[in-house]
């Protein structure tokens, strides 16, 4: 097992290096094929990591904190070697049931992006570098999802920054070079600042506990809800909240998504945002349990504000990709609320919403990218209306994705949000119940707003009088490569919607 994990970490990294170092010129198609093969292998490897398990190793009921849950399992695929002895940093990786689905999601989305790139390439070309950067990001994210050492997590967290910056800066919106540069820089700077704060939190943890090892820290966490643990928790939470992104730290996100190329948006929304929430679940909650209880109401409050503010902002958007980007703010708000509830249901809801958001928003960005490519703009007013008449299949897929994203029961988006609300209804005993019920009600209204802006989108984009919005010359409906790329996401959306147990089982009883 650990060979597989090491393999899927090393393979994309080495493959990316090899791709850069290749002395020959490589066609765009060939580069994408190379990427597809490599990421396909990674996908296979990540699926092999999947085991039917019950419960995850680290997380235990909050009270009593010291004990592992009865169904807790040891980590799989562990590799644990010293890395930097003077700093007490170890190369400690392993997977459990909360990281494996995220790893598979990462591998899947990267694979789909590579497949998509086989046919659909950004105008600027330079496919070889793009593929290499995608592979680097994949390796970094998988590393972060399997890191069992705080410093290793931090390093992997940072690995993705520069590649993503380059992707936005080079392959981004080619109508607005200044805008994409600003978007890329804002993204990378805010994230770096956040991660630096997170690092400070880690170091405070180290000062208290004397180790960076997550397994040890989980088993004997840093107790106490005030003083240093509280400061550490705040730093870690704020640092991760930038990545999540939690309102009001979300300001980098709309620009970054809107300016990024299609594959960049997919990776950014589908995978990178999950690093933040994963970090909250993996690190903040188990390592600093008491301090987390102290800050949880605030986390929940800001998450709730994010849900409402993100949805309201969506209602006012006139740009397709910005709208979808803002929808991520709302959805990640749900994840944050679930984590803040610190309850079994909320935590699982957050995990589930993580995965579901990755799949659905990935699909949404793919579709949005397709629409943008066909019209050379993502401005809703310029695209015009009556997409159903011009691009019926793409319009239908957009509608499907919107419905999934607004949390229609029976599709993947529902279960996460439902469990989060359930968690907020019945939060951990240590938390103020009334406060969280208010959050629940407000978040519930947020789902209505979510529906409102997606319906507004469908109304303004898909529907309308075809006579007033004639088809443009290049309006080709769903191409084969798009069908191939998107169908796994559609299938997964439905599958997870009707069979949430597929994942929920995996996380077992906490």
């Amino acid at each position: 097992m650990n060979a597989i994990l090491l393999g899927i970490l090393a393979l994309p990294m080495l493959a990316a290096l090899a791709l850069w170092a290749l002395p020959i010129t490589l066609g765009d198609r060939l580069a994408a094929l190379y990427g597809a093969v490599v990421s396909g292998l990674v996908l296979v490897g990540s699926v092999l990591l999947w085991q039917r398990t019950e419960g995850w190793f680290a997380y235990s009921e909050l009270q009593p904190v010291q004990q592992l849950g009865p169904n807790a399992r040891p980590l799989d695929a562990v590799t644990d070697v010293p890395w930097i002895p003077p700093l007490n940093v170890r190369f400690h990786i392993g997977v459990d049931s909360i990281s494996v689905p995220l790893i598979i999601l990462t591998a899947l989305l990267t694979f789909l992006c590579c497949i998509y790139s086989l046919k659909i390439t950004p105008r600027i070309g330079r496919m070889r570098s793009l593929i290499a950067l995608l592979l680097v990001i994949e390796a970094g994210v998988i590393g972060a999802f399997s890191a069992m050492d705080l410093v290793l997590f931090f390093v992997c967290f940072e690995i993705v920054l520069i590649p993503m910056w380059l992707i936005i800066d080079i392959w981004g919106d080619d109508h607005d070079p200044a805008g994409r540069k600003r978007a890329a820089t804002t993204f990378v700077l805010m994230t770096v600042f956040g991660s630096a704060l997170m690092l400070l939190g880690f170091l405070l943890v180290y000062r208290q506990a004397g180790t960076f090892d997550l397994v040890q820290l989980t088993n004997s966490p840093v107790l106490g809800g005030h003083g240093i643990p509280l400061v550490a928790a705040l730093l870690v939470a704020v640092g991760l909240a930038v990545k999540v992104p939690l309102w009001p730290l979300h300001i980098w996100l709309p620009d970054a998504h809107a300016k990024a190329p299609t594959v960049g948006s997919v990776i950014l929304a589908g995978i990178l945002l999950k690093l933040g929430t994963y970090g909250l679940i993996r690190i903040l909650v188990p390592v600093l349990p008491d301090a987390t209880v102290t800050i949880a109401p605030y986390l929940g409050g800001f998450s709730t504000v994010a849900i409402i503010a993100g949805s309201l902002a969506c209602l006012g958007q006139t740009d397709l990709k910005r709208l979808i980007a803002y929808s991520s703010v709302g959805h990640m708000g749900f994840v944050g609320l679930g984590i803040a509830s610190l309850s079994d249901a909320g935590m699982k809801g957050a995990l589930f919403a993580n995965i579901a958001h990755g799949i659905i928003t990935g699909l949404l960005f793919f579709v949005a990218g397709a629409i943008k490519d066909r019209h050379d703009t993502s401005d809703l007013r310029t695209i015009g209306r009556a997409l159903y008449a011009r691009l019926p299949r793409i319009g239908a897929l957009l509608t499907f994705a919107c419905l999934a994203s607004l949390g229609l029961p029976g599709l993947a988006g529902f279960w996460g949000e439902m469990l989060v609300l359930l968690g907020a209804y019945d939060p951990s005993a240590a938390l103020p119940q009334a406060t969280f019920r208010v959050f629940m009600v407000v978040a519930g209204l947020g789902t209505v707003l979510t529906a409102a802006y997606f319906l507004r989108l469908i109304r303004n984009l898909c529907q309308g009088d075809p006579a007033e919005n004639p088809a443009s010359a290049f309006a080709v409906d769903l191409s084969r490569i798009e069908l191939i790329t998107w169908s796994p996401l559609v299938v997964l959306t439905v599958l997870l919607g009707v069979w949430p147990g597929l994942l929920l089982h995996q996380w077992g009883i906490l």
Partner: protein
Amino acid sequence: MIATVWRVAGVGFSLLLVLIAALLYGAAPEQASFLNSQIGDLTIGFAVRTDDLTVLLLAVVGVVATCVQVYSLSYLHERASSYHALVTLFTAAMATVVVSDSLFLLLIGWEVMGACSYLLISHYWERRDARSGAVKAFLMTRLADVGFLFGIFVLGVGAGTFRISELDPARISPGVLTAGTLLLLVGVVGKSAQVPLQTWLPDAMPGPSPVSALIHAATMVAAGVFLIARLYDVFSASSTTMTVLAIIACVTMLFAALCAMAAVEVKRVLAWSTVSQLAIMFSALSLGTREGRHAALFHLVTHAAFKGLLFLCAGVLLHQVGSAAFVVLRRYTRRGVLRNRLRVTFLTMTVGLAALAGVPGFAGFFSKDTVLEAAWDHAHHDGSVIGWVVLASVGLTASLTAFYCARLWLWVFFRSPALAGAIGAFEVDDPMADLEDPDTSKLKDASWLMLGPLVLLAVGALGLGYVDGLHLNWAIALGSTVLVLFGVLPAYSLWSRGADPRPAVLERELGVDRAYHGIFVGPVRWLAKLSVLGDRDVIGAYVRAAGRSGTLASQGLRLLQTGNVQTYLTGAVVGVVALAILAGVIAR
């Protein structure tokens, strides 16, 4: 090709439902659960059950869906594949609601129906009213569904289970029970378009008529009634909830009937009548007795038949004439063609309206009498205020219903004797009134694919009243007949004088819609703008200001870089002093 596949699949699926209902008829109740997951102490998963209620509703859904699917074969030609697929999904969702034993499975069906209705209402997405009606329908039901979801939480967590069959009101504390059922009621009110969430249903009329038939007769709106019937033990255990339900139902039935009296479009009249009829079912349910539940379900079944019939008839009018507005239909009627050319439609519609109005002998008469009887029993024997209120308002509603049924029937199909051929009540504000009369030569009745379902449902509207066994309470029957007459006579008298007084307040449907628009839509738009501006000008401004201050600081530092070494030295000496002072201050 694909359209054909979906057509066949749609009809086949509906027939399958009927078949299943037939097979399950009389079978012992059973339950099964699957795909469960454990979340803490709670089990989240799916479960199905079969019992009488399931079979009854399955049969109703199956029959109406079959009629609608067959009818649509001829009714609809463009975008047929998506249409039939969605109708099938819609039916399947309703079937899911009906067979579900898990609150979550029920919720899935419940909301998928909402989504399907949204997509079907906006089937003619090039029309503005269809687009806005669809959005409105989805958003209002979605809003209510949030309450529904919370109700599920409250009840589920309170009872420790999300299985319907395991919800035992005795084990749930009264406060939780009341809160949970009230929240569930919010969902029901939204889905069944009761006051105060009634406005979406009339606006959903731009959808294809068969869809309206499906929504109004058997699925969607009926789901609310079904839900309360399904959870009757739980609901009836909370008297608060039942009182609230009774008040809502009574207000709704009168309000909707009044609105129907002023509507000038066939489908809109029918839509309001649905709201009103559903309220009658709810009022029966709110009695909290076995008889009440029975009466409600009985009325649900007969209503499914005659309301489905009526909408399909309206569909024929739309399909053959091109509009279902009174003013357009009157142009044909003035020349006397409508009744003659659309003979089958006229006849079946007459049956449907008679059933709706509660004309003795038709299905609606019997089912409404059952409701009245249940209310009477409850009021008389138990001395319940609710019973009296229900009795009074159902009676009043019966009268109003008879009025608008008669009004519809007379104005659409008959020349007004007083003003034969002259300007009638509906032409006043019709800009096209001066134009030539339409070409009536091509008007003919629809194909038999459409008429077949009409006939089938008409038979139902006639005969279903007798299925339940005749046990008429003669006093009530007599009373209700008198009430019907009280409604019909004014309608006839007005029609014969060519007058159709429509109070403005009723025509505007009491201004509820506009008020909602002002209270909710406007502020939300304003907030959305505020949010966008806030992101741009407040949060974004901080970020930009940070960036700009960095740049400015950079510029400023460059200004200090004069190139004069003595400036540098001076700066350094000042720096030493400043450092000493700073350190001294901090050290204090």
